C-alpha cells in the first residue's frame, strides 16, 4: 500500500467516525429541542403569553451558564495534555471570545427595564446548579474530550435557538432591538461554527471510547440544560 493509499484509508475512517458522531449529536440535539419546546417558559413564548417578567427571568437564569461557559472551557483547556495542543488552543480561543458575553446579557436586562443589582445577585436555579457542577466536574478530568458534545449542544443554542427566541420575544414584548442584543447577536454570529466544530472532532477521532463519551456528554448536558429552562417559572 502506498503512503497516499494509507493516508486516504485513514481519512475515510476519520470521515466515518466524524459523521457517526455528528449523526448521534444531531439526534441528541433534536431530542433536546423537543424537550425545550415543552418547557413552561418556551410554551409562554410560542403561545404569545410571554411577559417582561418572563424575559427578565430568562436573562437572569441564562447569565449563570453564559458566565460559567468560558470558565469551564478554560478549565478544560488546562486539563488537556501536550499531545492535543491544537484542541487546547481552540478551547482557549473559544473561551476568550465568549468570556465577556454575560455583560451583553446584563445590558439587555437593564435596557429592558431591570435593575443591574437584580441580575448580578440572583441565585442559580436548580438546573443551573446541576449543569454548572457537571460542566466543571467534566472539565477537571484529564483530556475531557467528551465536552465537545456539551459544546455542540450549547453552540446549537446560540446558532439555532437564540435568534428564534429573540425575534419571538421582541415581537411579543414590543421593545426595541437593543433590548435583545444577546439573543439576536448570537444567531447572526454562528454560521461558520459547524465547520469549526467538525475540525475539532477531527483532532480526537477516530476513537470509539472518545466518540461514546462525546455523545453521552451531549445528552447529559442537554438534559441538564433543559432542566435549567424548566426551572424558570416566573
Amino acid at each position, binding site marked *: 500500500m502506498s503512503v497516499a493509499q494509507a493516508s486516504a484509508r485513514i481519512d475515510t475512517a476519520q470521515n466515518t467516525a466524524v*459523521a*457517526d458522531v455528528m*449523526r448521534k449529536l*444531531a*439526534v441528541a*440535539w433534536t431530542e433536546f*429541542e423537543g424537550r425545550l*419546546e415543552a418547557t413552561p417558559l418556551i410554551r409562554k413564548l*410560542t403561545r404569545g403569553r410571554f411577559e417582561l417578567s418572563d424575559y427578565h427571568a430568562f436573562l437572569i437564569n441564562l447569565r449563570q451558564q453564559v458566565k460559567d461557559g468560558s470558565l469551564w472551557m478554560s478549565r478544560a483547556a488546562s486539563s488537556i495534555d501536550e499531545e492535543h495542543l491544537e484542541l487546547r488552543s481552540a478551547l482557549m480561543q473559544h473561551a476568550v471570545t465568549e468570556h465577556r458575553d454575560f455583560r451583553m446579557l446584563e445590558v439587555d436586562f437593564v435596557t429592558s427595564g431591570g435593575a443591574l443589582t437584580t441580575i448580578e445577585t440572583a441565585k442559580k436555579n436548580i438546573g443551573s446548579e446541576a449543569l454548572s457542577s457537571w460542566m466543571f466536574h467534566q472539565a477537571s478530568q484529564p483530556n475531557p474530550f467528551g465536552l465537545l458534545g456539551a459544546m455542540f449542544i450549547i453552540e446549537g443554542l446560540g446558532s439555532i435557538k437564540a435568534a428564534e427566541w429573540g425575534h419571538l420575544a421582541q415581537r411579543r414584548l414590543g421593545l426595541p432591538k437593543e433590548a435583545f442584543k444577546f439573543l439576536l447577536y448570537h444567531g447572526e454570529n454562528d454560521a461558520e461554527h459547524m465547520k469549526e466544530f467538525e475540525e475539532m472532532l477531527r483532532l480526537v477521532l477516530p476513537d470509539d471510547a472518545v466518540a461514546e463519551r462525546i455523545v453521552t456528554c451531549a445528552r447529559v448536558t442537554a438534559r441538564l440544560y433543559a432542566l435549567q429552562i424548566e426551572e424558570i417559572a416566573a
Partner: protein
Amino acid sequence: MLALRDAFITGTGVFLPGEPVGNDRMEDFIGRVGGRKSVIGQRALRWNGIATRHYALTPEGDVLHTNASMSAAAVMASLADAGLGREQLQMLATATTQGDYLVPGHASAVHGELGGGALELASFQSVCASSVMAAKAASFSVRAGETDCAAAVAGEFSSRWFRPSFYEGTALIDAKGRLPMEADFLRWTLSDGAGAIVIEPKPRPNGPSVRIDWIDLTSLAGRFDACMWAGVAPEHRGSLIHAWSHAGPRAAHEAGAIALLQDFTLLKIIIRAWIGVYLEKVDSGRIDPKGVDWLLCHYSARSLRQEIVDVLEGTNAMIPEHKWFTTLPATGNVGSASIWMMLDALLKSGSAKPADKILCVVPESGRAMVGFMMLEVVA
C-alpha cells in the same frame, strides 16, 4: 406465537379530478379573498416547485366530486390494477385530513360510495401521515391473516377550505383587507385527489408487486404544539378549551377558527425534529441510506434548506437527489394522497427493478409526526 405473513402491494390507483390547473389559473379556482390578488402566491410556488394541480371544484365554485367519491374511485382503480374487483375487497382503511362529513368517519362515506357488501373499516383522520396509519392497519390485517385483500386509500379535498368565504368576515383578515401568510400559504400548496393501494398476502401473478418490509410512525405531539391546524383561532392554538365547537360555528368562523393555518416558525423546528427521527433510524440501522434505491417524499429535495442538506451530508445520511422520485410538480401536494400518487407513478414508469428498495417518507407538519415505509420490489 402467531407467525405473521408477508404483505404485498399488488395494485395502486390514483384519481385526480378535472384538468391540470397551471399556476396562472389557480386563483380562478380557489378564488380571490376580498376580491384581491394574493401577495404571497408567487413566493409560495417558487418554494414548493409545483407547476400544475387538480381541483374538485370549478371556478364558479361548483363541486365536481366529493372526498368520498374521489377516494372510492382511487380504490376501484387500485383493485383494477391488481386484477381484482370490489367483491374481493374485505377490509378498507381510509386516510384524510378532513372527510365530507364531520360525523361519521370518512371510511363509512367511502364504503357508501363503493357500495357492495360488508367490509371491515378503519377510518384515520390526521394530515399527510394518516396515509401511513391506514397502510399499517391494512397491511397488518393481511399480515395477521384476518383478511386476504385489504385496501388503504387516502383522499383530500383541500380546495374547498381555500374559498374566500372561509376567510372573509373573520379576524384573520387584517385592517388592510389582507390574508396573513399563515393562512394564505397553504392555499398555494395543497390541492385535491386520491390515491390507493391494494394489499394481499402474495405477489400478483403478473407484473411487479411490492413487499412491505416495515412501516414506522412517530408522533412528537407530546413536545410540540400544532403547526398546521384548523378548529381553533391562532391566539388560542394551545388551548383547546377555545376550540370551534365550544364557541359554536358562527362565532368560531368569525374568530378565524374555521381555516387551515400553518405556523412557519414552528415548521422550521419541526423539520429538524423529523430529521432527528430519520437520523435515529439511520443510526440504529433501521434505514441504510446506501441501500435505498428510490426515495419517495412529498417534500422536494430542492425545498429543503441548505443547512438541512448539510446536516444530512455531514452525517452520512443523505440520499442523493437522483434517487428522489416525485410527482409533486405535476400532481401538486395532495396531502395524505401524495405518497400513493408517487408510488403509483414509480411502479407504472417501469423504472423500479426487482430487489429495488423504496423508502417512503411522509412528514406531517400537523403536530410533528413522520411516517416511514420500506418497500421492496418483487418480480
